[in-house]
């Protein structure tokens, strides 16, 4: 492992240890009665206002406790420069009790004006590509007048669910494969985490010793999946499930996993962010390892697209003049806790407008190339934020009948059992040609 990486990890470990000690002390001070009355927080009514007499200005008080491992870890919400709309609504209600008595909600009479001035973007720190995209996003939004910050945290379905419940972020960059494949994600939950834009796919790379030539040889063997509950680990699990291969997952950072692979303690390592991971670029100079081909199959439809790597991408792991087939997992920009009609959906709408209006700021040389593959109007098997769809509908030309016919045919083919089949290809092709001909 490179020395700087070890130093950085050592600093992280030290910081985490210190934080654990300090958090314990802080919790002991801020919630001294929680253990004595454990049932109280769950049933406690929401505070009347986020800026009550005991809450410092600018701090939003949660209307519910945040519990982890059976302990209340936060009682007040994150600092924000402005009250969130929900609290503004509540504040307006408090200030206009007569209107409420008359059956008119304060929100209806004085609709909140969501401000895109500040936001928190959740990104998985173990996903180097997502982190890079998050950095680009925050910089572009700042150039458009919205200040934001990156919040490091998990973005698997379970972790995103916690973010939705815990109000820890406004937006998130999450892997779509993990979200779509999550069986516990109900329709209502999906509506609370709608996507704003589908981002580009990243090739999934599986590195193994050269005596492993086929993915099926990994069945029952230990394979590095990435950090536990990370986006990469979830994607790895989804991929192997789609492939019908069941290795034993090992959860650790990519650099450690590569060390273990080199030492023979792992049979293979999965990297879902290899394009952005310098550790992988330096690995395998002794030519003892190579990348395994991942053949796209119809079982992967709607989750993965094919991708291709060459020796130019991985000179140490792919032989010269060889082309390696793999699959790419798409990511998406998600709005956190933005169910239709909610005040947070309005805040997300304002952020979406700022993002979409200034999207060209991301198509410049100092930003990640992946932005250039992003079609803001691309669909995904996931609910889209309504404001995002409305912006798209207003921005693009009206769809003529022949294009609608082509799209309907494509949707029909995609929804069939097994997805679009070989026999659909000519029908869809003819439909596309008809649309193209209509526009000549």
């Amino acid at each position: 492992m490179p020395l700087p990486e070890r130093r950085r990890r050592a600093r992280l470990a030290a910081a985490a240890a210190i934080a654990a000690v300090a958090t314990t002390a802080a919790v002991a001070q801020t919630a001294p009665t929680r253990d004595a009355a454990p049932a109280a927080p769950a049933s406690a009514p929401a505070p009347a206002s986020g800026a009550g007499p005991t809450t410092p200005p600018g701090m939003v008080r949660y209307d519910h406790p945040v519990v982890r491992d059976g302990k209340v870890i936060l009682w007040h919400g994150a600092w924000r420069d402005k009250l969130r709309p929900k609290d503004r609504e509540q504040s307006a209600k408090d200030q206009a009790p007569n209107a409420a008595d008359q059956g008119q909600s304060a929100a209806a009479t004085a609709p909140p004006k969501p401000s895109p001035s500040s936001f928190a973007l959740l990104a998985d720190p173990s996903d180097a590509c997502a982190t890079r995209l998050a950095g680009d996003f925050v910089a572009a939004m700042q150039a458009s007048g919205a200040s934001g910050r990156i919040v490091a945290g998990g973005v698997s379905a379970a972790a995103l669910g916690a973010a939705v419940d815990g109000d820890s972020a406004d937006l998130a960059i999450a892997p779509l494969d993990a979200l779509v494949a999550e069986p516990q994600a109900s329709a209502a939950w999906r509506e609370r985490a709608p996507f704003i834009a589908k981002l580009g796919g990243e090739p999934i790379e599986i590195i193994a010793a050269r005596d492993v030539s086929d993915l099926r040889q990994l069945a029952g063997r230990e394979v590095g999946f990435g950090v536990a509950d990370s986006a990469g680990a979830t994607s790895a699990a989804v991929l192997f499930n789609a492939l019908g291969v069941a290795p034993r997952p090992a959860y650790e950072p990519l650099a450690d996993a590569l060390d273990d692979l080199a030492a023979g303690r792992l049979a293979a390592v999965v990297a879902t962010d290899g394009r952005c991971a310098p550790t992988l670029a330096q690995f395998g100079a002794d030519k003892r390892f190579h990348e395994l081909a991942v053949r796209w199959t119809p079982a992967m439809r709607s989750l993965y697209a094919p991708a291709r790597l060459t020796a130019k991408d991985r000179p140490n792991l792919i032989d010269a003049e060889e082309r390696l087939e793999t699959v790419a997992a798409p990511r998406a920009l998600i709005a956190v806790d933005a169910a239709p009609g909610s005040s947070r959906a309005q805040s997300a709408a304002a952020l979406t407008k700022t993002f979409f209006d200034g999207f060209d700021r991301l198509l410049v040389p100092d930003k990640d190339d992946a932005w250039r593959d992003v079609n803001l109007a691309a669909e995904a098997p996931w609910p889209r934020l309504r404001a995002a769809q409305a912006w798209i509908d207003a921005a693009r030309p009206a769809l003529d009948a022949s294009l609608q016919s082509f799209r309907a045919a494509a949707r029909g083919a995609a929804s069939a059992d097994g997805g679009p089949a070989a026999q659909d290809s000519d029908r869809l092709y003819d439909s596309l040609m008809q649309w193209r001909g209509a526009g000549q």
Partner: protein
Amino acid sequence: MPMILLKSVAGLFAGVAVGALGLAYWPQFQPATVAARPVAESSQRVAQSAPPALDKSAVDKLALALRDVQPNAAPAAAGPTRGLTLAPTNAAFSAPSDDARRFRAQGLVALAGGDVAAARAFLEHAADAGDARALLVLGDAYDPATLTRLGAIGVKGDASRARAYYQRASDAGLADARQRIAAVEVSQ
């Protein structure tokens, strides 16, 4: 008094924790650091330059060139491809395999849904597997005018690349390709 002392100690610990965490994550989340890319990584994205010119008269050369859809990728004839079955060098474009047609169908579905990057990937695989019609659709997937009509927002087309794919489709015998070439040339 002991309570005040305890609170002070807790506050001190919290301050140290915030500072330590900030120090630990500083290089990772500093925008300039995040945006910076090593030179070695720049080649890891698909190159955006135009494909090389083709010999228009020789279909068998075209079939060979089909394996080199990525302009900067190594020609398939010079090395193995793992994970994908390529068409024979002198593939009969009029009868693509089921695999090729399935890839084309997936590419068309992706294009209809606006996932242009995925559409291109599927169609390149179809073309690699010997499907000439995939070449024409690939041209559409790069044609800026077509992308605009499809309602794509953000993703940019590449007229020169679209023209190259249309040319390949034309050489493979698809008459519709000639109209496309003319339209692209007018727009350039």
